[in-house]
């Protein structure tokens, strides 16, 4: 079948009422996750992972992916209205978004962020539609040497793209690889570092590590007294940008979309890096760089488009090659595996309903997010009024449920707590936990691939 026929098949899956409902639910939860400071998309996806066990694979992945790209939309709301990034990828939006809000252009900034996100997200899905199937077909010819080379390339890219220095990134990746060696060695059957704890025989799971490092670790590093901020309520009558603002945002959206998608293909925190890079590019090419920091439209349009395109770009290596480019795609891969569907070339070729249904749902999801993020901005702002003192205990409760329900193992919950403490320590010493999760994910694969050279 050609791409168009496959896409029609995907839409026939994605437009089923129940799949539409789960896409909507994912987008809604993702927007709330993005709006709330202190809860990232990774925590949101990990916490809701057990809730998808009763669903079929398509609905489950559609909902979890909706949380991921939905959070990129929602993150801009807090940045523009409160100067607090709801999500790490929205840090750059704080600068000019909040400055626009102070000038009474909060509505225009939110609109530009939402439209830019929609254009970039849709561009990303079109590229995913065109690139992933041929890449997956090509990857069917890959053997162990090619996969080993890809894993090494991924680690090298990660080292260069990370926000911290090269030794720090590699140190964290090695730490993750070491954690990945815990449990039975698949090649020889030896138990490694299990200390007579039966649950450790299967190794350390991605979910407890990811939730501990990014969910609990973030909470421990955020004392409730520090989460305060003044909300600049948007005037919905001023939601539409004026002609000058549209003109000034057009090229930054286009550049951010292309730049974000390309960075999304590489390992690392692509959605975060792309927004920083896009801001730098926009400032460099601008005829008025002095306006940046004082409410430049390009400072909102570029980074917001880039982080959405990057989050979609990250699905290309995940779906076509089965390779995670960051902790979020690693958890999504875990979700597919829990449902017995291996990601990678076989997903595209042997489970077209799931793959194309997922791709089609992203076209629909991006439209849903555009509709959600503009008229309902007033409702999302109210979410910010929940005191952090009530919010973080709730998140801890969902972290415990999230980890425990995956395999009903209390050891996993203890691992989450230990990882939370480690995550707190890593932040104190300026070490990025993302490469650790990536190292943990590729550890079993790299061992098997290297051994079967």
């Amino acid at each position, binding site marked *: 079948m050609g791409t168009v026929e496959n896409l029609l098949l995907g839409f026939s899956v994605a437009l089923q009422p129940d799949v539409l409902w789960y896409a909507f639910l994912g987008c809604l939860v993702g927007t709330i996750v993005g709006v709330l400071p202190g809860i990232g998309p990774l925590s949101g996806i990990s916490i809701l992972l*057990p*809730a998808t*066990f*009763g669903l079929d694979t398509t609905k489950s992945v559609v909902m979890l992916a909706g949380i991921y790209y939905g959070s990129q939309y929602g993150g801009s709301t807090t940045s523009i209205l409160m100067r607090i990034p709801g999500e790490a990828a929205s840090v750059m939006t704080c600068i000019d978004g909040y400055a626009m809000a102070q000038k009474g252009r909060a509505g225009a900034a939110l609109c530009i962020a939402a439209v830019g996100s929609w254009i970039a997200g849709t561009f990303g899905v079109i590229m995913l539609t065109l690139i992933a199937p041929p890449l997956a077909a090509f990857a069917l010819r890959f053997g162990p040497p090619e996969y080993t080379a890809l894993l090494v390339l991924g680690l090298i890219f990660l080292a260069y793209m990370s926000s911290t*220095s090269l*030794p*720090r990134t*590699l*140190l964290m990746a*090695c*730490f993750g*690889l*070491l954690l990945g*060696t815990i449990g039975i*060695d698949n*090649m*020889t059957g*030896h138990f*490694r*570092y299990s200390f007579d704890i039966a649950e450790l025989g299967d190794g350390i799971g991605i979910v407890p590590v990811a939730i501990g490092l990014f969910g*609990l670790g973030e*909470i*421990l*590093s*955020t*004392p*409730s007294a*520090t989460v305060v901020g003044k909300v600049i309520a948007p005037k919905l009558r001023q939601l539409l940008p004026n002609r000058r603002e549209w003109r000034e945002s057009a090229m930054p959206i286009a550049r951010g979309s292309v730049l974000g998608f390309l960075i999304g293909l590489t390992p690392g925190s692509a959605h975060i890096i792309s927004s920083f890079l896009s801001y730098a590019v926009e400032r460099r090419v601008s005829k008025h760089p002095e306006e940046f920091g004082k409410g430049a439209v390009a400072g909102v349009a570029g980074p917001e488009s880039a982080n959405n395109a990057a989050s979609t770009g990250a699905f290309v290596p995940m779906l076509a090659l089965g390779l995670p480019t960051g902790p979020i795609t690693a958890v999504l891969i875990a979700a597919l595996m829990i449902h017995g569907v291996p990601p990678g070339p076989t997903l595209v070729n042997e489970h077209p309903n799931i793959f194309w249904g997922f791709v089609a749902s992203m076209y629909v999801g991006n439209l849903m997010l555009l509709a959600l993020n503009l008229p309902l901005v007033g409702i999302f702002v109210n979410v910010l009024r929940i005191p952090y*003192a*009530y919010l*973080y*205990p*709730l998140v*801890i*409760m*969902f972290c*415990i*449920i999230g980890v*425990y*329900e995956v395999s*009903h193992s*209390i050891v996993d*919950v*203890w691992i989450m*707590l230990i990882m*939370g*403490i480690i995550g*707190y320590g890593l932040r*104190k*010493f*300026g*070490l990025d936990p993302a490469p650790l999760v990536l190292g943990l994910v590729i*550890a079993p694969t790299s*061992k098997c691939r*290297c*051994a079967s050279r």
Partner: protein
Amino acid sequence: MTLRSDHIAGGVFVAFGVLVFALSGDLPLGTLSFPGAGMMPKLVAGLLIVFGLLLVLRANESAPVATVPWSDLPHAARVVAITAAAIALYQTLGFLVTMALLLFALTFGTERRHPLAAAAFSIGVVALTYLLFAVALKTPLEPGILGF
């Protein structure tokens, strides 16, 4: 010499790498064509030590330990202690009781909210979550020895 954060971080990872080597004594190394169970951990522990040492050697680029802010440590320690107690009790007391106690301890004990507000929040949220998982999502939560 000023003690810097990378001295501490690098030192911890070097010590961890040495510990992994010590624990891997009985794991066979194997050969390059057929690596044993000890090959990968020892190789990676070696790299961990190298990168840890590199961090220590380049520690001058990092901030002095004295400037690392630790004002949030007491709050973090309280949250960890309460969460650890909840994990320890989870399978015994079950979801409803443990989580209500966890939320109450965090909102009243740690955040000093009004006890009635904290109790209402804890019971309300736990009841809603139970209904969401057990009824709407058909994912039964841990019953505990009390049977609910």
